[in-house]
């Protein structure tokens, strides 16, 4: 635990929530994020790195300024703010103005972490809170998808918008995400480009294969509860298969649903946040199934093309209820 000052801390059980997060775990997660980040760089150019760096800077600055623990800055050493920043950066579009990414990092750490007393206490995933804040605050900027394959050193003009001002769209070309194309034009994208990431979308979400490999690595090192991603992907696949069988013309096939949008990234890196997901194995299954169900509901029947972020946040909100419902009964009560 990061609390190195030997203050006497009196609290009530469960004590287990402490000790679940260590710099070691964070380094493993960061290591797993590196290939995802590299793929984002390959696909979207320098913008990918800059947006991620801005989001991370926002996270670090907010934690340094507002974390109540002293001496100032000690809480940064556990690297969790860096993980949050990278995750937030990876779910933003490539042409996103850097000042907004910085602000999103502030919202993520401010609302998602510092407010609750720091690491290990947040009921919601901080990176997703930051993303949800940005989605509600700047709905236009966050759904402007720039095309990819423009070279390793390409930079989008909108990245460099001055703080509080709009980015002037120099590269007016936009590339709709596969999900948006599904929603608004009923076009299904082929599986191969989805799997290797040859599509429009947020920085880190396009390359499905790399995310899956990173997830396998983390699961093998027992960094997270494998039940959560497995149940999310399984429930999404099963539910969308049912709908696809009912009306194949209106509802997309299950593999498209699994590989498109942020589902893989969310299932592997966001939903598995050990603090904001249930503590019991049975709870993990329920949590994952809930996320999958909500994703299918929002994607197929909602007003927005993508719903992974909201699905995970909503299940985060339901986590205390799930914990309570799946708590092992004490004999005789």
């Amino acid at each position, binding site marked *: 635990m990061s609390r190195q000052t030997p203050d006497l801390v009196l*609290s009530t059980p469960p004590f287990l929530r402490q000790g679940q997060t260590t710099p070691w775990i964070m380094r493993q997660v960061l290591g797993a994020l590196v290939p995802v980040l590299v793929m984002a760089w390959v696909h979207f150019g320098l913008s990918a790195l800059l947006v991620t760096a801005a989001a991370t800077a926002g996270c670090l600055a907010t934690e340094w300024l507002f974390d109540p623990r002293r001496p100032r800055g000690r809480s940064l050493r556990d690297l969790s703010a860096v993980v949050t920043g990278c995750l937030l950066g990876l779910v933003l579009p490539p042409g996103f103005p850097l000042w907004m990414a910085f602000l999103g990092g502030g919202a993520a750490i401010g609302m998602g972490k510092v407010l*609750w007393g720091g690491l290990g206490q947040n009921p919601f995933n901080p990176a997703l809170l930051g993303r949800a804040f940005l989605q*509600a605050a700047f709905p236009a900027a966050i759904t402007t998808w720039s095309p990819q394959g423009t070279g390793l050193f390409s930079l989008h003009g909108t990245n460099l918008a001055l703080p509080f001002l709009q980015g002037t769209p120099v590269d007016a070309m936009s590339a709709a995400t596969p999900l948006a194309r599904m929603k608004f034009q009923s076009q299904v994208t082929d599986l191969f480009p989805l799997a290797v990431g040859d599509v429009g979308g947020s920085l880190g979400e396009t390359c499905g294969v790399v995310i899956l490999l990173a997830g396998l690595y983390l699961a093998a090192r027992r960094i997270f509860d494998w039940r959560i991603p497995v149940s999310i992907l399984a429930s999404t696949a099963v539910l969308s298969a049912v709908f696809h069988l009912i009306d194949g013309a209106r509802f997309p096939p299950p593999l498209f649903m699994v590989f498109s949008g942020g589902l893989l990234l969310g299932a592997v890196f966001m939903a598995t946040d050990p603090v904001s997901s249930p503590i019991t194995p049975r709870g993990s299954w329920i949590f994952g199934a809930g996320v999958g169900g909500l994703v299918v*509901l929002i994607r197929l029947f*909602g007003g*927005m093309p993508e*719903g992974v972020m909201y699905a995970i946040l909503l299940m*985060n909100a339901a986590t205390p209820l799930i914990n309570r419902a799946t708590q092992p009964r004490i004999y005789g009560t």
Partner: protein
Amino acid sequence: MGDLIWIFVAAMLVNNFTLAYFLGLCPFLGVSGRLDTALRLGLANIFVMVITSSCAWLLNTFVLPHAPYLRLIAFIIVVASTVQFVEMVIRKMSPALFRALGIFLPLITTNCAILGLALFQTNRGYDFLEGLVFALGAGGGLTLALVVMAGLREETRVLDIPKVVQGMALYMILAGILSMAFMGFAGLFSSGGS
């Protein structure tokens, strides 16, 4: 049928009374400390809302066309007295149900969610069945918000949250986060319904 489903989903999730319309905030912030209390309050709310919706429909159809300026006063008085009457009936018929829900009934009647329900129903011109479905959806949404909030608040008790944040500021920000998460339901079923 599609319309009814849409009214229900819209009232419960898309335009959740508490998280999108800010109605019923007093119980949402005040009585969400314990999960079982929150659940019972929510159920009592559904119950009163169904009564309110029926009363409002009766008033709108038979009485108020003759005196529209009495709408507000009529709603409040009729709803309050009907709920009082039902409370007495429940107390006689089923003491168990009364113990579970009854104590909340007088509290609820002067709640903005109840009056809001009647007013929205009137403004949107719902017929009797639509009004009932609207009441069930709105009450269900209120219960959902209350229960989720109570779960989170029970959880926060075991955290050492900074002292500056504790109390109303935390609940308000928590409500904001929930409201943000509920934005994911925007536009749900809207293409299938109206």
